[in-house]
């Protein structure tokens, strides 16, 4: 049914149809019941304990994780033979979305179920899995992932931790130091990355906390997510049985990178619960806060903020679940070809690593935007720890840093696309040339179906794609294999691609909902997003071009950019007011009850 892309990044050169993409509104009754159950769990067990969690009350976080395990939340995507639920990819995305509202708990949950469980699940031997997975799924074993070191963060493979074979060849002896280890304070099983002897690449090891030689520092004092345990861990002559090597020797680096793909898209979807909670609180507060004799939600300045928070969050929901489904489709396809579910998932995630990175960058930055405006709407109160806005603001900040910084991910998006173009897996260079030829020929008039409310947006999307291809193609041609040295330009082009994906996904989602529920507010959402994304795409393209071109060539590229980002002006103020009024009247912004 939702059969769209063959390979990640293809959206740049391919038209999409609303019927072929998945939108949150497509979730079925059972999936919604799971989301509701999860929400009930948070309201009953987690949210009332927020204050204690934030103070890192000993034993509490692992106890809460265990309780979530009792509900089945720790093994959503793990197969049933290990006690898991074997759920589809997008269902596990939905649960990550709901849990996202909890900040510290969400981080602990995400680390345990993601980076701490999945390397074992994807790369472990049967013996290793039987030994540790059921415990991780039930919550009897707590997990942590130890990759980062004081001198190796984004450059993960530069890690200094070393492993050497013991004399009797039965153990590896590990020495090294790891930092920023989420759940470090209570984890029983650590997935640790270290180089064996003088290997070029890292290897991964399953290390039980009770192995002798492991010590740790006190809890880090952090800016946000204060309730999640974050430790430095030291490995001093730790003997690890050779059967605890995870994957092949030197496969650790690959494991680390592949697991990050899944972490990124999960982080993308995991910010949504927070975004919605902040928007709903902001709407409620602005409805109740009276100034100059009226609720502040009646002011245009506040409406303008609410509308923008809504549009961005709505598009973020659209991209994460769209990408989630594309990954799921691929998993099913690979499984049909005879691959195991594990291998299928890994392969699918790798194919859509561009989308995973886009979701991570876009979502984490939108969360930051939303919490910032949330504090602003609360005014002085937003700056007080009396209301949850201050905590939301602090908790949000880490999202742009962990699981690959925004910068690393922006570079990654372009890096992958360039590599795939060179390999001819997706031919962006050719498509770019086609646009160049079009530019040289006589322009044709825009023609769209005035009876279709969305046709003008699809036309605009087609144009923007051409604009991006021109900028991308020209930069690639100009810098050739030295393009990696031009990080600023790469990030500009990444921004254009991210905005395009967000805008296109929003249009597809609004259109798909509109087919069943022709509500005018959907058209306003599309309109507001068109303005926002086009503005950003133009300015990023402008910045990129001015950064290396001049004279005639610059003029040519800029006029092309203008031509492909041009559209009939809209009344943005009225459009945003209508969006804000809709949600102000509803009093909240909820995933399954938008209209």
């Amino acid at each position, binding site marked *: 049914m939702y059969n769209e892309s063959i390979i990640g990044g293809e959206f740049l050169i391919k038209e999409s149809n609303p019927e072929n993409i998945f939108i949150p509104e497509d979730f079925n009754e059972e999936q919604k*019941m*799971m989301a509701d*159950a999860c929400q*009930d769990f948070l309201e009953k067990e987690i949210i009332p304990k927020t204050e204690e969690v934030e103070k890192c009350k000993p034993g509490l976080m692992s106890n809460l994780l265990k309780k979530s395990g009792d*509900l089945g*939340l720790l093994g*959503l995507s793990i197969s049933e033979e290990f006690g898991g*639920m074997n759920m589809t990819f997008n269902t596990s995305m939905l649960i990550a979305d709901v849990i996202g509202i909890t900040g510290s708990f969400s981080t602990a949950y995400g680390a345990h179920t993601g980076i701490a469980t999945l390397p074992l699940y994807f790369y472990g031997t049967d013996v290793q899995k039987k030994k540790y997975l059921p415990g991780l799924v039930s919550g009897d074993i707590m997990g942590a992932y130890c990759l980062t070191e004081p001198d190796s963060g984004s450059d993960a493979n530069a890690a200094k931790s070393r492993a050497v074979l013991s004399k009797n060849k039965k153990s590896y002896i590990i020495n090294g130091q790891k930092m920023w280890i989420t759940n470090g304070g209570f984890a029983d099983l650590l997935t640790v990355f270290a180089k064996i002897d003088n290997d070029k690449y890292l290897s991964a090891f399953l290390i039980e906390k009770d192995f002798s030689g492991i010590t740790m520092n006190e809890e880090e004092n952090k800016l946000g997510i204060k309730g999640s345990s974050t430790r430095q861990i030291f490995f001093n002559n730790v003997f690890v049985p050779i059967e605890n090597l995870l994957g092949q020797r030197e496969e650790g680096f690959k494991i680390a990178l592949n697991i990050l793909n899944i972490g990124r898209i999960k982080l993308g979807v995991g910010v949504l619960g927070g975004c919605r909670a902040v928007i709903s609180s902001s709407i409620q507060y602005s409805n109740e806060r009276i100034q100059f004799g009226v609720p502040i939600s009646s002011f245009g300045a506040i409406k303008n903020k609410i509308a923008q928070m809504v549009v961005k969050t709505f598009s973020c929901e659209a991209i994460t679940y769209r990408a989630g489904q594309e990954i799921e489709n691929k998993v099913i396809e690979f499984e049909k070809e005879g691959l195991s579910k594990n291998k299928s998932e890994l392969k699918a995630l790798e194919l859509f690593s561009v989308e995973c990175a886009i979701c991570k960058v876009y979502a984490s930055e939108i969360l930051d935007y939303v919490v910032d405006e949330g504090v602003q709407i609360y005014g002085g109160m937003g700056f007080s720890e009396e209301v949850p806005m201050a905590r939301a603001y602090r908790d949000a900040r880490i999202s742009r840093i962990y699981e690959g910084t925004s910068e690393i991910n922006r570079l990654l998006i372009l890096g992958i696309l360039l590599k795939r173009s060179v390999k001819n897996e997706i031919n962006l260079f050719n498509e770019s040339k086609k646009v160049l030829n079009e530019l040289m020929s006589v322009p044709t008039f825009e023609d769209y179906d005035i009876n279709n409310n969305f046709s003008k947006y699809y036309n605009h999307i087609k144009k923007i794609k051409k604009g991006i291809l021109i900028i991308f193609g020209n930069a690639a041609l100009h810098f050739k294999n030295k393009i990696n040295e031009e990080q600023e330009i790469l990030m500009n082009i990444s921004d254009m691609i991210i905005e395009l994906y967000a805008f296109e996904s929003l249009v597809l989602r609004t259109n798909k909902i509109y087919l069943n529920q022709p509500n005018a507010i959907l058209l306003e959402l599309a309109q507001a997003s068109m303005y926002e994304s086009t503005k950003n795409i133009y300015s990023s393209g402008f910045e990129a071009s001015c950064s290396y071109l001049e004279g005639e060539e610059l003029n040519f590229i800029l006029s092309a950019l203008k031509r492909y980002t041009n559209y009939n002006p809209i009344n943005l103020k009225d459009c945003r007011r209508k969006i804000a009024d809709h949600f102000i009247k509803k009093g909240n912004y909820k995933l399954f009850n938008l209209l």
Partner: protein
Amino acid sequence: MNILICISCVPDTTSTISFVNDDKKFNSDGVQYIIGPYEDYALARAVELKEKDNSINISVLNVGLERNDPLLRKALAIGADDAYRIDVFPNDSLFVAHQISSFINENPFDIILMGKESIDFNSSQVHHITGSLLGIPSLSPVTQLDLNSNKNKILIKKEIDNGIETLEVVLPAVLGCQEPIAEWKIPNMRGIMNARTKPLKVIDQFECFSKINYKKYSLPEKKDNLLIIDENNINELVVALKLKNL
């Protein structure tokens, strides 16, 4: 042992209440429905009993329209074994009790659990009418329910004015439940996935004519804003009382 839980499907407690058709009908547009909280407790207690004695069969029953099916499936996810829906609009307490008692006449149960009241119309009558139609005991509000070694009897605690009554009740019986009979349960993921394999039967209504027509709904009058007066400022109090002709 067979336990039946009769569940009401009621608007979420945060719903905005409004009326349509010249105030003759409740406006259900955009309203989120939930299992009545008191029935949620009853169901949770039944599931607890089943956890100790797996031979117990738990059925859930709703008198209502198709939109309630997701809530019946939720009850199955929480732990009920089968579900029934009598496909008719639940017009009033007598009508609903007639439907339930006719159903029980055809499908006997040992214990029939309900909430002490539904939280929409709050009539608190369905359990007692059902009990009298069936000619069996009905007790409400019940705060504790335990099985007895004698399978024909149960032990219950029931709230009365200024105290609690502890009773031994001969089965079958109808109980209207309230907290702390059990802590409400969140369906776990496995339960939700299993729910799709459990039966949900939709049955035709039993012949019975409703004797109640709704003339008009109205919202309670809006309460005046609370006025806080300083204890040293009696004059302000006098002025305020005079303004209200008190």
